[in-house]
């Protein structure tokens, strides 16, 4: 696929996306209300809905919170596509098409960029943190993809990365931030052959 074609496809998505943020702020208040919906909606072809809004994502702290307060957002914000096999497959294709694989490895185990299959996450391993790392980029190498990949596709990338087994589900986000997970397999059924905590 040529880049030009990728652009056309992506940005037509973005246009559709703009009209489909019905769940918007409900997410912040009641995640569970939306968490089961996306796959059904995506399968129904009516466009992505239920994505956590930008305004909320911007509030997710990159570091710990001054004053020792717990970081509740990383725990509350779930991947709207969590557990969707279709979304993970779509994310895998993105992972190759957008050259993520060239840096992080076709198996996600690292190369120029860090390993995505272990539990060491410099910028956070919860779905919200991974989303933000993709969207915003990170200063020591990761480009910001927010202007190039539509938000629903970024969430699908997050779904694929979660399927690799090293990231934390939102429910374990605080535990991961505290460093309690060690080398624990945080995804049921994930195969973590040769996982290395080598950064």
């Amino acid at each position, binding site marked *: 696929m040529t*880049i030009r074609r990728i652009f056309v496809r992506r940005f037509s998505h973005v246009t559709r996306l703009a009209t489909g943020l019905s769940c918007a702020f409900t997410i912040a208040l009641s995640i569970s209300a939306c968490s089961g919906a996306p796959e059904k909606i995506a399968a129904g072809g009516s466009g992505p809905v239920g994505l956590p809004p930008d305004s909320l994502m911007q509030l997710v702290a990159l570091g710990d919170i001054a004053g020792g307060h717990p970081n509740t957002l990383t725990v509350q914000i779930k991947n709207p596509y969590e557990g969707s096999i279709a979304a993970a497959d779509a994310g895998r294709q993105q992972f190759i098409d957008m*050259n993520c694989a*060239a*840096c992080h490895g076709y198996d996600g185990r690292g190369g120029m*960029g860090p390993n995505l299959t272990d539990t060491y996450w410099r910028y956070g391993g919860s779905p919200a943190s991974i989303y933000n790392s993709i969207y915003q980029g990170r200063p020591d190498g990761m480009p910001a993809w927010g202007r190039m990949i539509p938000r629903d596709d970024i969430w699908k990338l997050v779904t694929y990365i979660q399927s690799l087994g090293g990231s934390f589900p939102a429910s374990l986000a605080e535990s991961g931030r505290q460093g309690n997970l060690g080398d624990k397999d945080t995804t049921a059924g994930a195969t973590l052959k040769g996982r290395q905590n080598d950064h």
Partner: protein
Amino acid sequence: MSAPLLFNPLRRMRTVLSLGILGGVAILAACATKDNKGISATSSDTTAPPGTTASTTTAGANMTGATAPTGPGWGIPAAADWTTQGRDYANTRYSPLATIDTTNAADLRIAWTFDDGVLHGQEGTPLVANNTMYIVTPFPDIAYALDLTKPGAPIKWVYRPNPAPIAIGKACCDVVNRGWQLADGKLIYNLLDGHTVAVDAATGKEVWRTQVYDVTQGVTMTMAPLIVKDKVLVGNSGGEMGVLGSLTALDLKTGRIVWQATSTGPDSLVKIGSDFKPFYKWMQGKDLGVTTWPAGAWKNGAGAVWGWITYDPDLNLIYAGTSNTGPWNADQRPGLNLWTSGVFARNPDSGMARWAFVFTPHNQWDYDGVNENILVNVPYKGQTRKVMVQFNRNGFAYMIDRATGEVLSAKPFGHENWASGIDSVTKMPIVVPEKETKVPGHWVRDICPADIGVKDEQPAAFSPQTGLFYVPVQNICMDYKGRKVSYIAGTPYWGADMTRHVGPGGNYGEFIAWNPVTGEKVWGIPEKFLVYSGVLVTGGDLAFYGTVDGWFRAVNARTGKVLWSQKLGSGIIGAPMTFIGPDGHQYVSVLAGVGGASMVTQAMPGFPARGGTLYTFELAPNIKSVDETPAAGMSTVSKKPGAKP
């Protein structure tokens, strides 16, 4: 003619010559041997002091007389010093120092160490001039000057250039720096983020900083500059990022860009004009850097100039190789893909190309052409020919007439199975059909060598005393699958999936001696881990090299017998050097800190941790225990009641 080294004035002379080197390359050239008889001719005076070769009267005399190759020997610093990465313009990495030799190498011990604090691959060679040692770390590219006149060589100055952290994510293979140079009173080197800097060698103050490339487009700089006359020659990295490879000349005084020559594209960009005379027909024609590609593909065709540059002052030509072709997936770029995976001879004043040779046309395996070109003069069919020898990634040792680009020989120097030989007329490799990688999505098994080659950038050495090359060799193969890839600026333009494995025999590394006249290995030392260090060879007939698991060895350069080994803290991927300290003793220094492309073997059990330590060795009897205990007053202070340890 040569500058005779007299006994007592040695130290004074060393100082004078050092000042000369730091005062300008013109003076440096005046000190050099110009007689083409080899480096050891500089010490033919029988009153030569300890620390130089005393008795060799003609180059190669100990080998086979007139049939032995010799080093041309330009640009040699004072015997005591080491001021450019390859030590001389010919990149021989040969030092005439001979106090440490085959009889006493077993007495080498650590004299002092220095930790540079950066845990990335340490690929450079320390430099010494004016009783000061200079090293530069991997990113963030910090320069240190160490005062050799004081016990333990303390820091004289530190220069922190603060390069852009973005660069970390644009470098394919660790954030290395392959070397730095001293010229015109300045320390000159490249930053990973595409800048070249010049720092006052006496004070550490920045003299100039030039942005040569745009890191946001995936272009980085990792190579060692070479200073030729009034120009600083630098090249870019990014063979995996779809960059437009180029070599750039900066003005030594100001850092201003004087010329730039690309590795692909129209002749006007490549700097091909009426003087361009490639030896082989398939490289003759107009705009081949465009017409040997699908439309427009040359713009992201790589040919980065990230390796070593050498210089022949007599021919006034510089030699610099070009990297792999981008993307790796060759299916996306039918054609010969000139001038990637090759080498250019250029006029250093104008950048105009004189000749080119492409080692691996339509490169399907990532076999870069950037390895060092070592300049020697060899007997060939009854004549003496001025040649350059390159131990190419593709596994063949090429001996090329450096005036014309004619390939005189090309022989395998390690294990390869992708080519059955080199065509006798075109000098193109004869590719084994089942090792072609063209069809994407199809695994091709057991291609030898792997992408990193039978030898990578780690530089070999040449001794005019033995007439032999000393070469780090890799025994590594790959399974390879091409992948369709799209160009997105600033991200990898790679297009391959692969796994690597050890070659026949199960040893990843070997250290060999190579006779360029016969095109044969003379001896070899197999190593379990990769040999990814550069090489030093000395007038004491010692060859020094290191392994990726951290063993630093001294070897009899004639027999290959290992005379001494020392385990260092991390793997060795830099190149050792030797110098004479202010105390008149000979020292050997090497950086240890694994990284770079050697990390492709990091899954091996026992692979060492990262490090960043400079080790300096000298003969045990010379090592004094230095009285560095604190002054009495300080000692009293520390014993105050209640003071914490």
